[in-house]
């Protein structure tokens, strides 16, 4: 899977690349508007991570260019400008997602995973993890071919783990993911714990392996 990261802040770009490469993605970077346009025009990517404020031009222009060229690359806007207008404009111009800075790397991993799945497997979007099969369209989970009922949050959590396989995910990152826009304001570590406990229990009760490992008591990891 090929990803283009358009970001002028090299330190942040390095982190993202390091994380994504460990996730087995092929990662290219562009740090200026001109460089970005050249790469976008010459190559095909599965997913483009786009910062809106770039030296030499706006990320919005790159989106317009992509639309004009009728390119099908998935686009996630990563921006410090967390305003509704920007978000709406970006999404209207064909971006698939909008992730305001600052974000946790596993969150970015989950979003990329979701977009690539949606783009590549539009008609039969099924994620398989050994004995676990998740149908993303019907939002159903089968363990050893038996249907297991998950709540919306548990399903989200499961996908989040699978998207960040073998990575240590901090409780803060999980809390932020689970509580969404709102509630990064909540002290929700107990909340995270409760959800993970339920998810684990449902999976093991249905006969799946215990993939979710606790790491040092402060984070979790999906080992597979």
């Amino acid at each position: 899977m090929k990803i283009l990261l358009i970001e002028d802040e090299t330190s942040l770009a390095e982190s993202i690349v390091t994380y994504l490469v460990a996730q087995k993605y092929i990662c290219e970077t562009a740090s200026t508007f001109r460089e970005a346009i050249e790469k976008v025009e010459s190559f095909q990517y599965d997913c483009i991570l786009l910062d809106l404020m770039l030296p030499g031009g706006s990320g919005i222009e790159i989106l317009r260019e992509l639309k004009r060229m009728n390119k099908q690359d998935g686009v996630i806007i990563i921006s410090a400008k967390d305003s509704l207008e920007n978000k709406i404009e970006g999404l209207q111009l064909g971006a698939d997602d909008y992730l305001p800075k600052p974000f946790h790397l596993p969150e970015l991993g989950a979003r990329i995973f979701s977009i690539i799945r949606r783009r590549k497997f539009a008609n039969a979007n099924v994620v398989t993890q050994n004995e676990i099969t998740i149908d993303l369209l019907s939002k159903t989970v089968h363990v050893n071919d038996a249907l297991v009922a998950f709540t919306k949050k548990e399903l989200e959590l499961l996908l989040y783990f699978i998207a960040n396989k073998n990575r240590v995910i901090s409780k803060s990152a999980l809390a932020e993911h689970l509580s969404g826009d709102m509630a990064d304001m909540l002290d929700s570590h107990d909340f995270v714990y409760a959800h993970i406990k339920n998810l684990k229990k449902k999976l093991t009760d249905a006969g799946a392996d215990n993939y979710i490992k606790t790491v040092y008591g402060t984070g979790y990891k999906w080992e597979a």
Partner: protein
Amino acid sequence: MKKLLNKPFRTFLTYTFIILACSIPVYYAIVDFIWLRELDEHNRILAAKIKTNITKVAVTDSALYQAIRVWNQVLPETKITETSEMKADSTYTLYRRNEYLRSKGSDRFQGLVTTFSVNGKLLSLTVENNVEESNETIAAITAVAIVFFIALFAGIIYINKKISKKLWQPFYDSLDRIRAYDLQSQKKISFEKNDTVEFTQLNENIERLVDSNLKVYTSQKEFAENASHELQTPLAIIKSKLDLLLQTPSVTAAQSVLIEEANNALARVSRINKNLLMLSRLENQQFGDTEKVDISQALHDGCVLFEEFFRDKKIDLSVQIDPGVTQQANKMLTEIVINNLLLNTVRHTPTNGNVQVELTAQHLYVSNTGTTALVADQLFKRFQSAAKHTPGSGLGLSIVQQICLRYNWEISYHFSAGKHRFEVSFNNA
């Protein structure tokens, strides 16, 4: 407090009153003096006429006596009597009952006594004439004075009003504009042109003052917004580095705790930053688009959103929502008001406590179990978190207040019977 124009008005009126009151005796004295002098003259003329005519009649002594007798019978007031000595003319004033018109009562008379000689006989002649009584004169003059005073009073009120309307019009106009002016609107203040030097100077100076304030205010707000923006990128870098650090195989348990603690603090900074940005945007009059927002639906959605959190803390949530409550507002801002209020209850209600949410066409109530009252006037200020140990940003209620302010909704807080109660009163005018 008195109006400026009413201050000299009262003084003018008092002065007018005193002058008019003083004029009454003066007028009386003059009128009476003229009256009496005129009547004295009239009496003298009459006396001279009588003297001349009597002398003509008195050809003989008997004719004279005959004439005097007839005269005294016909006009007893104008008596002619024989006297022994020649006296200088004298005048008198007396009040006497009118013998002929009794209903008129007592009248004042001005008389003249003069002596003259006819055929070597000394005769005394008394001529009398009716004069207007002094009390009647005073009454008439007073009545006139009162009429004039009323005319002046009415006139001054009328002119005063006219002056206040015309002359002071630019002043009141400026006053209205200053009163209506809101620094947050970020518009310059402007006044109507006028041709009065003082008012023009006043307006110019106010414009100058407001302009400089506006500049300070704008730059301060831009600073807040820019600072928040600029902070996002370094925060993103720290966050990503911590995430990577956690992936290092050599991380020990102790280090992992450090990372998690750093992450928590970072989450809090991000939160504060995000809310500061939101406040700056609110104050910068962004989110201008409004629609008819279904508050009932939004509140219901909010309750659903937080359901799990309530369940998690074993908080008993009771919801009573009147259907179809709508307000003209920005949808996102309305959701923020609802969510921030609910979020506070999730955060501050003790485990096993309860939360009540109620919506009517006029009010939104959110109340929850609590132990001590919060300081109401500190509550909505920035960074005045009631409890320092909670992970709040200290900006949630400031944001709620800003949004309420924008739509003329009134937010208030009460504490009674172990319950915190927030109330939003909608503006249904």
